């Protein structure tokens, strides 16, 4: 059981795809001008990640190493195309929001990275859970980056969430103030915000460690 606990911890925090491994940076920068976009991309990526991890893990014994990367990537690309086609056909509104970004999932190096470093070496259940954990960790980071950029950049939060999640989620849409620092929703803003978030994560961990030491000493 603690296996799964570790896998979850890894995916969500310690080895988070964005914050820990610095992988999947392109979507993390390109799609996070708003929290809603981040969420949509995160969810779509999670779906592909779980499926690809499962698939890769189940064929791992069959795949010769010389052609392993082409095989994995073809699998991933097919999955992404499937997602793309299905969204386009049956969830067209959502597709219009995410449209451009879905093809990007293929080359999201985080997915192949997971296939290579985890799924191709681990058993099915572990791989599936890993995909899920990594996906959720990714989604959370995407939402966090998107939220900060959106608030600072345009003064709103979860704008157009109802388009993505349905009208029931309209309550998420907040308007905090008019205007904002345009920079934040432009390319440089992505880097700056992620840099700031990572520094905050560091400071948090360092603070926790320090407190841990203090507690240990006083105990």
């Amino acid at each position: 059981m603690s296996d799964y606990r570790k896998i979850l911890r890894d995916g969500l925090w310690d080895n988070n795809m964005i914050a820990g491994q610095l992988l999947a940076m392109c979507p993390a920068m390109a799609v996070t001008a708003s929290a809603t976009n981040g969420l949509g991309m995160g969810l779509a990526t999670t779906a592909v990640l779980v499926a690809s991890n499962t698939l890769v893990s189940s064929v791992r014994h069959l795949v010769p190493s010389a052609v392993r990367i082409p095989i994995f990537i073809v699998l991933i690309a097919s999955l992404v195309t499937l997602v793309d086609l299905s969204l386009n056909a049956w969830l067209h509104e959502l597709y219009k929001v995410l449209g451009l970004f879905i093809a990007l999932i293929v080359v999201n190096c985080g997915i192949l990275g997971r296939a290579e470093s985890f799924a191709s070496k681990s058993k099915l259940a572990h791989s599936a859970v890993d995909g899920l954990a990594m996906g959720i960790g990714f989604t959370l980071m995407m939402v966090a980056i998107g939220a900060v950029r959106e608030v600072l950049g345009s003064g709103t939060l979860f704008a157009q969430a109802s388009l993505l999640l349905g009208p029931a989620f309209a309550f998420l849409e907040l308007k905090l103030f008019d205007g904002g620092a345009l920079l934040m929703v432009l390319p440089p803003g992505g880097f700056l915000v992620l840099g700031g978030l990572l520094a905050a994560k560091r400071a948090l961990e360092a603070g926790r460690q320090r407190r841990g030491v203090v507690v240990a000493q006083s105990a």
Partner: protein
Amino acid sequence: MLIAVTSLTLIATCLGLILGIAARRFHVEPPELVSELEAMLPGSQCGQCGFPGCNGAAEALADGLAPVTLCPPGGPALALALADKLGVQVELGAMGEREPTIAAVREDICIGCTKCFKECPTDAIHGAMKQMHSVMKEACTGCGKCAEICPTEAVTLVPVAATLGNWRWREPAFA
């Protein structure tokens, strides 16, 4: 549909063949990193690094599980050499500029049990049964094994005495 499947399959077959052949043609033996690393370590198997001897240390280094500064006897020179070998950066600060120490035997307490003599990985201790033992400065790595084993605590680690020969400027203090 048929065109799609056949054409792509055909392409894939070709690529697979090419890659397979390339993999065989361009095959290279992985370098014997572990043994090379082990050869660089002092080989005194002292365990100060926290690994079971130099071999363990070399394996950990090769797997990237241990910092290049792991080996106190090797000192900064070894750390630099290892860093060079592994293509990583060293934080020599992490070596803590530990004051070098060597073992010293207190004549009044040494009972000549030869335990330290047997323990020393570099044969730095000389002496015979029931006689005072002494330490050869040049050979002692300061690993402290002798001090640990000495039944009368006659062996202690003392800082290497500063002389004009080994004195050097300390790092300037800086804000």
